[in-house]
């Protein structure tokens, strides 16, 4: 049997095999999350609605941050400043939402999202204009955002409305057994992002710019505009994560270390199958990856692992999982 060029471009691959090749990673990460959940359920004496709600709710900021990072990385950038943006948005919300009615807090939330998008678009613009690598400029923006957060709320405090807390946690106090508001919000956001990135010109442009700048340019895409767009959306997601953080804690704390959050978001992006070189990946796989990373420390605690060892194990797990990707990719290339 010989493969002619014609045969290569028609549907010679069985449908499910191609599906697996394209979406296998996404599928695998979701599966891993379910396996971990099942394992966790056997580890602890009582596993019920409270535990599920706690994982979903507390993981939410993490997942939003990872989605924002994923969008930026897919478009060929990387934003170390997202953690700082999360903290800044969180303390800003806590400062201005304290004692306000639900509707007012919603208005403030929208304003914060918009402001974050504009500010991070500015970061993207600086990267474009200065031609300095993303990693350098955003290292700067991380410190700037973190510093501004301290200025905004020097001492931990502030607050928000009950309705706003319910919106992210399913309870007026931030603690409860209702994961549904968070589940619905994440689902809506992920579906919207997935459709945007797979079906629209601006969304596909992110992949184009991250994959092959020359080809993107020749296809009539303005790579500079795409970069700014990705930073704007990524910044808005970081702010959304910050709002979730305020809703969960009921207050703001500017001493939260944004840098750690950034590194976690990068780890989630990588675990979610997004190539750090850009152009490859999807937001859908980043969601379970974010949950898995968030979820590792309670599991290790439940297993009775010393918290100081837990970090080591967490680090090894990332290396092992990513090595598996590398091996799978290598085997695929050998075979094809």
């Amino acid at each position: 049997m010989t493969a002619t060029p014609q045969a290569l471009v028609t549907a010679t691959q069985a449908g499910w095999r191609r599906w697996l090749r394209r979406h296998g990673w996404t599928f695998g990460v979701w599966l891993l999350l379910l396996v971990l959940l099942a394992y966790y359920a056997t580890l602890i004496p009582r596993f019920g609605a409270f535990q599920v709600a706690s994982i979903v709710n507390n993981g939410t900021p993490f997942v939003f941050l990872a989605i924002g990072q994923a969008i930026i990385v897919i478009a060929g950038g990387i934003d170390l400043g997202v953690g700082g943006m999360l903290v800044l948005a969180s303390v800003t919300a806590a400062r201005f939402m304290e004692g306000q009615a639900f509707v007012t807090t919603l208005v403030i939330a929208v304003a914060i999202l918009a402001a974050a998008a504009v500010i991070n678009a500015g970061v993207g613009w600086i990267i474009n204009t200065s031609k300095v690598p993303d990693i350098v400029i955003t290292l700067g923006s991380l410190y700037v955002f973190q510093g501004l957060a301290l200025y905004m709320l020097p001492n931990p405090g502030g607050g928000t409305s009950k309705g706003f807390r319910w919106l992210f946690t399913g309870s007026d106090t931030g603690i409860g057994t209702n994961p549904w508001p968070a589940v619905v919000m994440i689902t809506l956001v992920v579906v919207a992002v997935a459709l945007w990135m797979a079906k629209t010109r601006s969304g596909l442009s992110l992949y184009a710019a991250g994959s092959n700048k020359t080809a993107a340019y020749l296809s009539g895409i303005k790579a500079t505009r795409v970069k700014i767009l990705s930073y704007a959306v990524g910044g808005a997601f970081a702010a959304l994560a910050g709002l979730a953080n305020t809703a969960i804690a009921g207050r703001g704390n500017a001493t939260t270390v944004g840098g750690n959050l950034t590194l976690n978001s990068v780890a989630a992006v990588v675990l979610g199958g997004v190539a750090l070189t850009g152009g490859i990946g999807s937001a859908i796989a980043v969601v379970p990856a974010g949950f898995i990373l968030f979820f590792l420390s309670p599991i290790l605690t439940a297993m009775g692992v010393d918290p100081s060892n837990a970090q080591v194990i967490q680090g090894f797990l990332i290396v092992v999982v990513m090595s598996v990707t590398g091996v799978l990719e290598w085997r695929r290339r050998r075979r094809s």
Partner: protein
Amino acid sequence: MNEASETLLSAQGISKRYGPVVALRTADLTVRSGEIHALLGANGAGKSTLVKILSAVIPADGGSISVNGEPAALRLPMDAVGAGIATVFQDPALIPDLSIAQNLRISGLTRAQVHPWLERMNLGHIDYEIQVSDVPLAVLRLLDLARALARDPHLLMLDEITAALTTDQADYVFDIMREWKDRGRSVLFISHRLGEVLQLCDWATILRNGIHVADFDLSGVDEGELVTAMLGEELVKKAEEEIVAVGTAEEEHAADLGPVVLEARDIHLRDKVNGVSFQLHRGEILGLTALEGQGQAELFQVLSGDHRPSSGELLVKGERLRARSPFDAIKQGVVLVPADRQQALLPQRSVRENLTTPLYNRIGRWFTLAGDEAERVERAVDRLGIDVRAGSQAQRLSGGNQQKVTIGRWLASGFDTLLCFDPTRGIDIQTKAQIYDLLREVAAAGASVLLYTSELPEIPLVCDRVLVLYGGRIVHERDAKTATEEALLSAAHGLVEAPA
């Protein structure tokens, strides 16, 4: 040619420089409606630069462009499309990580706009959901063409589109070009294959070293006149002498075959290579040719140590070579000049550094490169006549000079067997002659060369023997001197049985 037909595009005095290298000095080009216009020139003459300026991919430093008599401000690629100019560039402009359908969506095109053109090119059955990185190069070129045609341009610019195409695929392109002309629209055609140019084009503009040298009405011109205009009188003489010298060298040489240095025994690689066996002798240039996608790329991957065969064995000087990576093959003196120069070059590094790269692995040289490298590199540069004005970054060199660097790397380090994969694709006649000459010289000095080429007329000029690959098997072997283009073509289409 109807002189009264209106001018569609006029570019006057276009100039462009990249750092110290002047790509275009004063390029003039006038394309009329309803003509197929050839843009000719040696490598580095500035053809691709001019095309990029006309498609607004790069800005010109000077000069003026007008379309339909109106001055045109072309700042972004979409401006050129808006002005009725659509281009198929030398390199495919599709995003590899997206599917074909997603690529179309990015360009703002629908399947309905593109599909009729793909059908005309016998690609009507194409699967739009397939990822572009899985599509063969030839099909990518045709997809790019279909994308350009879907814009229904007044001027279609084709930069070296036929270089990667098989004969039948090229015929589809020629048909479309003729149709464009019949509709009163225009095509700007760039090709190194002068046969195609004379057959198709009405008019030619010739560039040399970034300067417009002549316009030809192609109805009464032969290849020789065009080549002379492209290269200038002196260089033509030199190139001819070199090719004649190559021919003579071959006469003297072909008589005796040395010992076998590389032997392939029943090599299989999945369903791509299906039992290839051959022997390559010392001092021999063995030609290999095939249509697109007959397993030649995979065979070269196996030979160069990039890929292990599914079965079969390779012997280097009688000893079995089990290469886990090109490093092992190179240690045994088997080196590769790949088709894609980007795979061989460090684009941001200097010419000298590129030439030195293979020397990095010499034992005892891990801590110092201060030995004889400088001298070896100097010799290779002289030998190849590489233009080192842009030497600080290899990516600034013209395609032909880059190709010389990819061969020069191995000259500097030394080798026994040179595997060349289509080294002269898209390269001008003068550089071609230099590369042939170099291969003959290397063989005369006792090395062996396996040369895959898609350009059949090259074979009797350079090779001693020739193999034809079809469907992953060698279907034909003959003395290269008697290998006519017709015989090779029919064998390449699988029409001739292997001689017993």
